[in-house]
């Protein structure tokens, strides 16, 4: 069981009442991983939202050799109290990157997306607060991705002139 006090430190869950946190707690699972362990793979169905409670998780492309990455450097490290697995809230509902344990030990919370959406349907306040945060994370990744593409195309245009 995840401690409510720990849940309160998570950025995405800040401002939620004890009742709301308890509801989320009921659809969450606490897991531990070692460095190099894979949490999920790129392309897998994204049925969960994840939060780091301790340690660090690395997100990266994990494509077979010869298959190009969409952008050069998407690697990011997710630290304590941060959220990942945001692709569970947007089509095609598949993880865009693979996730690996990046510290000797990392503790994460895995929240079933379907249960979370049911909670949102019954509690619009919770839905609005959490979606605001999730959208911010999605937006950051989208900007990063789009900027990577624009940078590459911009470079091609400049060098082609």
């Amino acid at each position, binding site marked *: 069981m995840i401690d409510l006090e720990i849940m309160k430190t998570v950025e995405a869950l800040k401002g939620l009442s004890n009742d709301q946190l308890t509801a989320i707690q009921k659809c969450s699972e606490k897991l531990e991983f070692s460095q190099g362990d894979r949490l999920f793979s790129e392309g897998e169905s994204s049925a969960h939202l994840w939060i780091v409670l301790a340690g660090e998780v690395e997100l990266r492309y994990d494509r077979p050799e010869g298959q*190009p*990455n*969409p*952008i050069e450097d998407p690697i990011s490290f997710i630290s304590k109290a941060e959220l990942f697995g945001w*692709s569970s*809230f*947007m*089509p*095609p509902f598949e993880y*865009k990157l693979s996730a690996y344990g990046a510290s000797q030990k990392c503790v994460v919370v895995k929240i079933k997306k379907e249960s979370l959406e049911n909670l*949102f349907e019954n509690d*619009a*306040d919770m*839905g*609005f607060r959490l*979606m*605001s945060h*999730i*959208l*911010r994370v*999605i*937006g*950051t990744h*989208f*900007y990063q*991705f*789009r*900027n990577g*593409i*624009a940078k*590459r*195309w*911009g470079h091609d*245009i*400049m060098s082609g002139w």
Partner: protein
Amino acid sequence: MIGNDFLQSVGIFKGLDENQLSAVQGCCREEQHKAGTKLFGEGQQASHLYIVKTGQVDLRFDLPGRPTSDKNTISSILEFKAFGWSSLVAPYKYSLSAYCASQTCEVVKIDRQSLTGLFEEDNRLGYLVLSNTARVIGKRFQKIEKLATASPVSMVKVIVHLATCGIVAGARDVMNALMEEMNRSGRADINVESSGCIGQCPTEPNVTVEIESEDPVVYQKMDAEKMRQVFHQHVLGGQVQTDFVLDKQ
């Protein structure tokens, strides 16, 4: 005046009831722009969310000291689609510039502060709009991802409809112009085909452009000049030439 029926057709407002749509309507303002007009610039405060009502808007990255160009287009936004959603996401700054890409375009401009005020008053409205926005971003993500990774080979097919009705209306001139532009471009990977009548004789010559992951676009009443424009702007540049598109009705 924007009606609830228009807002209902916009993906990010899916699921809103009549009262919620009316509330959103109160934050809307319409604007008309001419080809090439800059609606907003990269890095500016994202004070509005936009919806294309008619025409096309291109989202482009700007290069220092260079004029804007189709080559800088990252996404083309067509009717009923929203853009400028940076207005809903911190740090509330537009990440690309928006340009009117059709002869004229009409857009609906929604004031960010008024809209987020509605979200605070009605959390369900806020939840629905933000969830829908996540879905819209997801689809754009997929589109851009495909553009970034796909090989251009066999992605594009141009079909000139060369039935008797089409030939009488001038389809051969259209085909000749297309082949000339193809040769000039050196893009041997673009597939050019001819086919029969599509059952729209009064709108001949017709040309269909199929780009992978996009809906096919049928152009009407084409001539050599229009074909050259469609080839450069749509086939090579990815921007649908809405002024020539066959009216589906």
